[in-house]
């Protein structure tokens, strides 16, 4: 088993899905010099430059050392997701570091063993260079959780087997009939279920495309420009990053596929029929401006081929149905179907475009309150609306047409006792819980959280003051 420091190093390098501006500016610190910020006395608050710089801040109060400390503190402040200290730095005998690495032995997540027999068992996700959760990134909640755990794992539930059976059907049929939306109460395990589906499909030789934070498509964090050909706002940088990730994860499979027709690309002529799909993707990764056209073409080629089923997995699915934070030159907010990336996802989610073999699976999320579940989507999925509803509430006809035909997969609000027991066992064996692991603690926390998975772990076990 990898020591915690290597896990974290892996996580630092690749589990974060940054937008283009963030990726450019964040320099990752060396892990072996990391110190917990709250334990360190800060020299002073660093003001943003718009508030002006005082002479003291410019010259450096107290000399060079404080300047570098302040610069280092500023640099460390930029990280939004938790980064744990490596185990090797926990030298005090209180931490019992010599006993940390040997406890968590889990069976590996493998598609062959996924039957009713493994329900309520925890299985560890594989860790390799081309792991989709590593390359595409993870939602923030899961990222933090997997940084705390010594290895990313999840508990197999009844709903996991249902989704997997559904995906087995979808592998032989078109994606129009297999457009699923995972819904449930906050913290019930929607993102984890989506991740399980993604890992299953990847190991079953599907071609996978995963958007762990679809909100980053619509929250004005990536460049956009009006394209007169498609009459939408293209997002070249995001399309370029998507193509890179698609190629990294699915490279060998894309090498085996061939384009069925010539693909026209602006200013670069035509990529001939019979060219490898991997080469087509590389045309898009060479020039960012061409990336949106190439991504559309690659997905349409993937839709025509029948050699590999295709999975399009989208977390924060409701975000692509909300009005975006982008503004057009007249300062009105741009609709998602007028932006290239959300439009592409909406077309596949609505069945306007389809994969000959495959499925589109989305998971709703209530974490970001600026992108709440819109009325059009709530009505199609028969979910209680979060915004004013009724016959007088305004509905956008285009979004209603994009939401038609979606089917809901409900995740149970509460974990079953056996599932909660397994989860409790995993966290206990990983030495994450300060309290004595007994039945009393388990039942107390299970009752307090009402079986809700996130509350059980975060507000129950990890926040408990009992010893």
């Amino acid at each position, binding site marked *: 088993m990898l020591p915690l420091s290597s896990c974290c190093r892996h996580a630092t390098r690749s589990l974060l899905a940054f937008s283009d501006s963030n990726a450019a500016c964040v320099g990752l610190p060396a892990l072996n010099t990391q110190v917990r910020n709250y334990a360190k006395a800060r020299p002073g608050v660093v003001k943003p430059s718009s508030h002006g710089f005082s002479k003291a801040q410019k010259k450096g109060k107290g000399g060079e050392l404080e300047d570098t400390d302040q610069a280092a503190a500023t640099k460390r402040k930029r990280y939004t997701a938790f980064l744990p200290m490596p185990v090797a730095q926990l030298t005090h005998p209180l931490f019992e570091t010599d006993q940390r690495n040997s406890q968590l032995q889990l069976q590996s997540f493998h598609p062959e063993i996924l039957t009713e027999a493994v329900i309520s068992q925890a299985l560890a996700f594989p860790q390799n260079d081309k792991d989709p959760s590593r390359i595409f990134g993870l939602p923030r909640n899961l990222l933090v959780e997997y940084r705390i755990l010594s290895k990313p794992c999840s508990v197999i539930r009844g709903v996991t087997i249902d989704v997997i059976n559904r995906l087995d059907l979808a592998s032989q049929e078109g994606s129009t009939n297999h457009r699923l939306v995972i819904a449930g109460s906050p913290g019930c395990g929607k993102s984890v279920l989506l991740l399980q589906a993604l890992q299953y499909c990847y190991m079953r030789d599907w071609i996978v495309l995963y958007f762990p934070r679809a909100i980053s498509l619509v929250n004005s*964090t990536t460049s956009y420009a009006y394209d*007169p*050909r498609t009459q939408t706002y293209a997002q070249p940088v995001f399309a370029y990053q998507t193509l890179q990730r698609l190629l990294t994860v699915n490279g060998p499979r894309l090498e085996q596929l061939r384009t069925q027709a010539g693909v026209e690309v*602006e200013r670069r002529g035509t990529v001939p029929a019979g060219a490898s799909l991997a080469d087509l993707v590389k045309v898009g990764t060479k020039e960012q401006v061409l990336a949106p056209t190439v991504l559309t073409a690659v997905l349409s080629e993937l839709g025509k081929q029948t050699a590999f089923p295709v999975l399009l997995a989208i977390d924060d699915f409701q975000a692509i149905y909300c009005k975006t934070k982008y503004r057009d*030159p*007249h300062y009105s907010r741009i609709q998602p179907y007028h932006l290239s990336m959300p439009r592409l996802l909406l077309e596949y989610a609505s069945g306007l475009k389809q994969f000959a073999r495959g499925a589109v699976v989305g998971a709703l999320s209530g974490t970001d309150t600026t992108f709440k579940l819109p009325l059009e989507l709530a009505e199609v999925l028969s979910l209680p609306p979060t915004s004013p509803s009724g016959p007088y509430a305004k509905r956008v006809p285009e979004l209603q047409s994009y939401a038609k035909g979606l089917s809901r997969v409900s995740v149970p609000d509460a974990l079953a006792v056996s599932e909660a027991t397994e989860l409790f066992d995993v966290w206990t064996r990983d030495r994450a819980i300060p309290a004595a692991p007994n039945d009393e603690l388990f039942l107390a926390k299970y009752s307090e959280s009402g079986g809700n998975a996130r509350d059980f772990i975060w507000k129950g076990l990890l926040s408990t003051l009992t010893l």
Partner: protein
Amino acid sequence: MVHVLGVALPDMQLARLALTNFYGIGHKTAQRLCARLQIHDRSKIRDLTAQQITELASFLASPSTAPPLRRMPLASPTFQPPPASTPIEVLRKRVTELSKPTGAEPLRNLKIEAEGRRVVRENIAHQRMIGSYVGKRHAMGLPVRGQNTQSNAKTAKKLNRVNRFG
């Protein structure tokens, strides 16, 4: 560090905040400017292309004479785009034909830097010329808007005059 019309815009600053360094541009106007130039919220000055900076400079040099904005056509869900080999001039012409003129543009009346300071100076000079209470208070270097003078008139006593901003 990019210099636009004599104002230095720091590289590491968000573009929509860096634009507030201009006299006459606050947060709202900066957001509108970014929208007009299609600069996203998290873009920093160093991420801007040379073309965007040129457009920004040419717009701010003279906002009232900037080419009028048109409402570009936006694709419906069933829109099929023309092939990628279509020449760009044909596409632009088609889009211009389909575009609609806009009404009022708030940024057209934008006055920044020297022009903005001149407007303030002229307003105060006008108040003095017509002999109003406001003009007299500026001339005396006292608060204009009915604030207390028994105590706390320090800023007015320091700054208020008929010829403000040199």
